[in-house]
Each structure stands twice: as C-alpha cells, then as structure tokens.
C-alpha cells in the first residue's frame, strides 16, 4: 500500500476515524485504524463493535493495499506532522510515513483479524435531514438518556419515523426529552440508537454541515455524511411508551425568561453541590414572580427571585437542578413555558414561540421536556 495525501485532509480523516477505535484489551485488533488504498481513494475504518466509522479520502494512490495501524499512535503521530504533503508506504509489517523532513516507521497490526464492517444494505429505509437540524435535535434530546447500564433501553434515543415527521425521544425515567422534526423522505420505522453513537453523529454533522442520510435497518442505523459514514448497532428491547407519559392537561402555566431562570437555578443550586446527591431547587411560583431557593442545613441556603407570569394557583415545586437546567438549556428559545399540575406530578417545559406580550407566549410544538419533581 502506498499513497500521498494532503496533510490537513489526512490529519482530519485520522482524527475522525479515531472516534470509534475500540479500547477493549480483549480484542487488540480493535485498537487499530484500517487504511486501504483503492486506486485514488484511501479508505479509513475503525470499529469498537458497537460503533463503526468509515471514510473515503481522495489521495494520490501508488499501490493498492491494506494496513492496520495502532490507532492512538497514528493519531499522536499525525497531529505532530509538519505542514507538508504526507506520503505513506506500507509493507507487510511496517508503515513508513514521510512528511517534510519527518519520518516515522510504525509497526503494523495484523489486518486479517480486523472485523468486517457492517455496510448499509441498498434496500433499507433512507431519509435525509439537514445536518444542522439533526445536530440540534440530538443536542436537545440525547441529554435525557440514562447513563446507567442497568436498563440498556434507557441509554438510547428512540427515533420514530412516520410519514413526514421524525420524532426523537430519550428518558432516564426522571425526565423525558422529545423533539419532532419534518422528515424529507417518509420512511416508517423505529430505531433505538445508543446515545454515544448519536452524539458522535451530531459532532460529525456539526463539523461537516450539509446533510445527513439516515439509513435504518433492523439491527443497525447508519449516518452518512458524504464520504463518511458512522454505523451503530441498535439497542435491543422495547423503549417505554413515552407518549402515554405526557400529561393530558395542566392546572398552572408559567411563562418565564429562559436564560434568566437558567442562570438563577445554576447560581442558587451551588449551595447544594457539596453533597453527592443533588440537593433540589425549589420554585415558589406566584402570579408575577418565581422565587428559587435551595440549600441544606449543612451547607447553607440561597434564594433569588425573577419575574414570571403564572396562570393558576401559586405552587411550590422542587426539581433536581441538573435536570431542570438540562431542560432549560435544551429549549434554546428566549422564553419558556412550564406547565404544572401539582408538586408531585411531572411538569412540561416547552420553548415559547416569540410573542409581543410575554404573558401571551404560546408553546412551540416541536420540543418538549417532561420533568419529574422531587419530593421535599
């Protein structure tokens, strides 16, 4: 295998491929990045058996062939390369890299043991989303997925495609984030995607822009960005029926400035952070103000008020501050609407559609964050 590539493109490609390099010591071959020259294309691939990445790069190919290079070492090497074209020449057990006056001679791993990467089948359901829209959806929703492997289905984000819309939802049983976006091509399918895979796809979407092609298959999903592709296995199991969790109505509705409430909650919650278990923040809602308090006897107390328009009876309700700030952060709008029934039932947070009068703000339909209160 022999090729010559632009330094910037090669460094970028290696860095991208390193995202799915496996760290398991039991399968050393997964710690490698596979380089394959086919004509004037260099294909880089890596996998940790859950997430696989593959990208194709135009190079000046001189000899076709395959090499499996230790991933971390290759990454460290390419990051330090001087600004000059890179030429690589691999024989059976060595890769020689030349860049300017720098030369590296890297030992190769056995490419025969490298697993065959899954490829999307031609007849699978495909849909296209704008990269920006996709990245925003994942950023809003994936944060609600659980980090606890005890219930694997909750560590994923469910993607539900129907004619015309794609709904992404995640829940860790304390909160639920859900967003519906218009769907360019109406394939009907459902996939439960590991959060990590979606976060990687989001980063790629933010980095590369343009469009994301989603290819849904029974056991895997592929996110394709031009010459790059990320394939993730799906989580087995049934995702909870999240739509039935949405409360049918509300008794109180608060319209408040999102940034201001976010800032106040973050500030007030500081007095609780000494404890390992999150100390709840309590919202004291009255007709025209929200008083936020937090604290414990051991650490101290904090409180701050901000304006907010409440429809309905005053209410005192407590939340885990991290979950509340996650929701406020995800909403992204200038103002948010919070709907409550009582202090023990879930609250619904939605971005408010811009309106002239703050009290008249109507909730936007596409993003919703359901948050369970904390008993105090």
């Amino acid at each position, binding site marked *: 295998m022999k090729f010559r590539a632009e330094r910037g493109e090669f460094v970028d490609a290696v860095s991208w491929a390193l995202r799915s390099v496996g760290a398991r010591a039991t399968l050393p071959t997964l710690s490698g990045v596979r380089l394959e020259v086919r004509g004037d294309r260099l294909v880089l691939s890596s996998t940790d058996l859950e997430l696989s990445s593959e990208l194709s790069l135009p190079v000046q190919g001189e000899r076709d062939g395959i090499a499996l290079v230790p991933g971390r070492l290759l990454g460290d090497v390419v990051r330090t390369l001087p600004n000059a074209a890179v030429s690589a020449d691999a024989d059976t057990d060595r890769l020689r890299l030349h860049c300017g006056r720098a030369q590296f001679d890297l030992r190769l791993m056995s490419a025969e043991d490298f697993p065959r990467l899954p490829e999307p089948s031609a007849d699978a359901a495909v849909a296209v989303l704008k990269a920006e829209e996709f990245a925003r959806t994942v950023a809003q929703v994936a944060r609600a997925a659980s980090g606890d492997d005890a219930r694997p289905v909750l560590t994923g984000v469910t993607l539900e495609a129907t004619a015309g819309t794609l709904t992404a939802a995640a829940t860790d*049983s304390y909160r639920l984030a859900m967003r519906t976006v218009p769907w360019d091509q109406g394939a009907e399918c459902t996939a439960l995607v590991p959060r990590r895979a979606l976060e990687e796809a989001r980063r790629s979407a933010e980095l590369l822009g343009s469009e994301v092609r989603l290819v849904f298959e029974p056991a895997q999903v592929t996110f394709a960005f031009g010459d790059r592709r990320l394939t993730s296995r799906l989580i087995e199991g049934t995702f909870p029926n999240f739509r039935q*969790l949405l409360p049918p109505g509300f008794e109180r509705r608060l319209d408040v400035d999102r940034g201001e409430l976010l800032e106040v909650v973050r500030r007030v919650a500081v007095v609780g952070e000494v404890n390992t278990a999150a100390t709840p923040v309590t919202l004291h809602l009255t007709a025209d103000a929200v008083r936020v308090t937090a604290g414990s006897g051991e650490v101290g107390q904090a409180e701050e008020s901000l304006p907010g328009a409440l429809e309905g009876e005053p209410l005192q309700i407590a939340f885990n501050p991290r979950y509340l700030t996650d929701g406020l952060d995800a909403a992204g709008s200038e103002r948010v609407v919070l709907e409550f029934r009582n202090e023990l039932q879930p609250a619904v947070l939605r971005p408010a559609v811009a309106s002239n009068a703050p009290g008249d703000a109507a909730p936007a339909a596409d993003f919703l964050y359901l948050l*369970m209160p*904390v008993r105090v």
Partner: protein
Amino acid sequence: MTTPPTRVSSVGVAAGSLGCAGRLVGGTNPRHGRHTFEEGPFPRSGVQAASRIASLPGVRVVIARCRVDYAGRLSATLPSAVRLVLVKADGCVAVHADGGAYKPLNWMNAPNTLVDEGSRWTVTNPQGEALTITFEQVHVDIAHDCGEDPGLTKDGVEAHLQELLAAHPTALDDGLTLVRREYPTDIGPVDLLCRDGDGASVAVEIKRRGEIDGVEQLSRYLERLNRDPLLRPVRGVFAAQRIRPQARVLAEERGISCVEVDYDTLRGRPSDELRLF
C-alpha cells in the same frame, strides 16, 4: 494527677483512680491482632502494679491530659494534650483526639498486658511493642458494663435478597418459577434453581454487590449443573443490587444474564423518588 477522677459505679467495676492495677494480657501488633483482657481490681488510690488477673467487666473511658509513647516497629510520640483513652472489655486500648472520625491516634489491639501504675499505663503485647500513657490530669474516668453485644444487623444482606427473590423469581425474568433454594452441587449450593417459561433450568447466583468473583462462582456452578442430564441445558442469571461493569462484561461473555434488583421494590417498599415510570 492533679484532679481526682470522676467516679461512676458500674456492674463489677469500681471506677477509681488511674492507680488501678490491671492487665491486658497477650497481644500481636498494635494494628492487627486478637485481644483478651485481664486486669486486677481498681484500687481506690495509689500507684500499684498489676497484682491480680480478672476479666474487665466493661468498657473504661478516660478523658485526660496525657502523653503517649509507642515503641515497637517504630517509635512515635503523642505530646501532652487532652485525649480520650478507651479500654474495651475485649482488651483493646485506643487513644483518640477530639476529631479524626472513628480512627484513634494510637491503639493496641488485644491481647495485651496493661500494667497500671496510677499515673502511667504500660500496654505491651507479645511482639514486644509497648504503648506508654503518662497521665497528667484526669478529667473523666468511668467504667460501664455494656452487656452482651447482639451484633450488627445488616439490611439487604444476601440471605434476605435470596429469600425475596425466591418468593418473586419473576423479578429476575418473566415466567421464572422456583425449583429450589440452595440447590446442592458437589462444590456447594447455588442460590436458586428455577425454570423458565419453556421449562429450561436457570441457576441464579445472588450477591449484594455483583463483582467478578460472583460471576466466576456462578460459572463453576453452571459447569457442574450442566453435567446433570436431567437439568441441562442450564443457563445462568447473576443478580445483585449493583453489578460492576467488569463483572457484567465477563458475565455476558459467558452467556450469563445480569439483573440488577431493587431491594426496596422487592420488599414492597416503593422508593421515595418520584419517577415518570
């Protein structure tokens, strides 16, 4: 001593001056070891050496300004300060400061020999280690018989988890029914033997904390149980309140399924946490 000690009478203990005679007999090293305590009667006053050996009827608590010197594997000195000195009925001697949580500044685990010379105690053990406590001013000196120790009752122990899971095997897997608790194998009993909905045998190992050792143990049982033509194929379920990721990886690699169980839910005590589902 410049202040008379506080006197508190207790069963079999005449709390007296530090001039009591006492012996804590035997010993290993000051950090590890077993202890027996033998001591003489507490004389009313004076400095006397141990003269008679008897069982200390309770714990003795002394709060005093004292200096402590340890000589053994190394030499260490606690300079003069007010400290809490505990002599437990089992013979352990511990010197505490007013801080540092549960941990003493210096201690001698039983068996020890305590020679009480009034203003000075010398605690020695057979390894030749010696703790010398020199009292300058005694503020409190009390003894009390704590009676028999019923021991620590732990909640959520494996036995109780086993009992609860035996009563509710479906908490582990749908359709599971119990065949027997403590099902014997020639290398020891497996916690539960169950049958699944298809009638296949399922061996369940229950731990409070699921670690690699538990997976290894279950693997050994499975290997044995699968030799029995009446049972095989037997699959394994590893159940614990929390399963460490390493144990989970190993279990899954061996085809053993992992189930984390909620102790409170099993006991029918719903968690105080509010959840969406």
